[in-house]
């Protein structure tokens, strides 16, 4: 019995190693590129032979990048907070309250989540230009909220549905109005779910490229992914590879930290909304 379990463990460690390689090889490659110096950048080695922090120095001295980083952080945090606030409210109503038009709203959220964003680029471009939102923070925040809402609503309503009905009934019996039941009993209990959803929403905002590319024109509101794509064409850098890699690493760090710290919750959040139906 003993050697058999050992063998099975070894086998599983082997399988795990493949998964780890799968996940990390492309990530470590970009880290490696960001650490290469000019001389070794083009040597094609996976591992840098003479690591340097030149690329990082370069991007952190580049006002455009710093501005883009600030944009990314600010826009994503604000969009996440608002999407979570509205999403929590809507998800609670959909999961728990009886009101007319509920099915329509669920269908609408589903529709938005399936929406090809490209279909909105032009109209949003035109509308935002007309009302002066083009190339501003709100100009990105608003679409981000709209596209984060379906995700937030689905994930959160799955969490809300797991809270026992009896708690709301008890709150009502204890003299709470529906709003008080929501605010003082249900929301505190849904906090873990709300937090998880916030992480998912943040990741989805952080990942956006298309809107950032088409609804901005200057560094005023351009986020890092879009700014990175402009590094290539820019002439300020002789060889943009290093800085691009460094910028890529910088915006990957917060995400990797989220994943490391909140693995369990992210898994729970991603799987709760979608499958249980």
């Amino acid at each position, binding site marked *: 019995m003993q050697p058999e379990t050992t063998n099975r463990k070894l086998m599983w460690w082997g399988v795990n190693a493949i998964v780890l390689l799968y996940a990390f090889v492309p990530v470590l490659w970009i880290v490696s590129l960001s650490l290469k110096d000019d001389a070794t950048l083009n040597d094609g080695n996976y591992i840098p032979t003479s690591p340097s922090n030149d690329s990082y120095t370069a991007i952190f001295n580049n006002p455009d990048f710093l501005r883009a980083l600030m944009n990314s952080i600010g826009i994503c945090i604000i969009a996440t907070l608002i999407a979570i606030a509205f999403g929590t409210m809507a998800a609670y109503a959909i999961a728990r309250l009886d009101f007319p038009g509920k099915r329509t709203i669920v269908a609408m959220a589903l529709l938005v989540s399936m929406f090809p964003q490209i279909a909105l680029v032009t*109209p949003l471009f035109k509308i935002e230009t007309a009302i002066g939102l083009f190339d501003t923070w709100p100009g990105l925040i608003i679409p981000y909220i709209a596209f984060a809402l379906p995700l937030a609503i689905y994930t959160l309503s799955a969490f809300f549905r797991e809270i026992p009905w009896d708690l709301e009934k008890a709150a009502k019996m204890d003299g709470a109005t529906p709003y008080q039941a929501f605010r003082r009993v249900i929301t505190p209990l849904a906090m873990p779910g709300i937090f998880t959803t916030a992480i998912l929403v943040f990741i989805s905002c952080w990942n956006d490229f298309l809107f950032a590319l088409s609804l901005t024109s200057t560094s005023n509101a351009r986020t890092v992914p879009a700014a990175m794509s402009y590094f290539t064409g820019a002439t300020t850098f002789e060889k943009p590879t290093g800085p691009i890699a460094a910028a890529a690493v910088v915006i990957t760090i917060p995400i990797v930290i989220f994943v490391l710290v909140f693995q369990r919750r992210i898994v729970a959040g991603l799987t709760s909304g979608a499958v249980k139906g």
Partner: protein
Amino acid sequence: MTATPTAAAAEAAEDRMDDGTTEIARQRHTDAKRAERKLGLMLVGPAVFIMLAVAAYPIIYAFWLSLNKADLRQPDANEFIWFDNYVTVLSSPIWWTAFGVTMLITIVGATLELILGMLLAIVMHRTIVGRGLVRTSALVPYAIVTVVAAFSWRFAWTQGLGWLAPENSAPLTEFWPSIGIIILAEVWKTVPFMALLLMAGLALVPEDLLKAASMDGANAWKRFWMVTVPLIKPAILVALLFRTLDAFRVFDNIFILTSGSNQTSSVSMVAYSNLIRGLNLGIGSAMSVLIFITTGIIAFAFIKFFGAAAPGSDAEGKR
């Protein structure tokens, strides 16, 4: 007794009024019901408003634009031209090439993702060592910004720079290798997401059922096909639907990897080029609308033919 039926009914109603029953019957919504409805509408209000403002109104506007000439390079020549833009698009080889490329990426990508996703899901579900480690690392591709990953693949295949680049050819300048790399980038990023959805399905398969099947003489392969797969079919379909729709929108990877050169543009890419680079809003909007319609057809086909349950469709919880 000449009273008409209506009058009789009114009389009866009056009779009942005395004991207060009608009052109750007429006032169908109790205080509690009314408060609940009001709160419900108030709570969904902001979310509905934003989704309408950002998605519903613009798509209608896009449809309007697609019926106009709306070429920003000739702003004065704008006119209402009915479906001319659609005719132009649908008779353009560029559009159909892009459509073919998109379908190819979608179908091959989604198939690979399903297979690899299932393998990864089984690994995450079954591994007896380092489960947390596997799950955490599997989340990395999901969480990483697509553009970042795309740059990583691009640099890896760039001649004289990348660790994967062949000696004397530039794969990203040729059609088939480019498509291969685009699919690789898409698949790499989304297999974990697929795997997580499938793993949630696997977790719902009762362990006892598998034990019973193995007592009945089913080997691992048969157990998988005859017990697990039928039971997690809903999870598979939902995951596949989401991925198919997502793959059809492919943009970021192509933008970074090839910028659409060598006819590797997806439909989103050509629409983007017409809109932002070509400033031809009419043509671009027509493409947008066509993409929107295609997406709708895909979703409809899934729900109709495979019966994929829309998530949250069981929103009415039972009290």
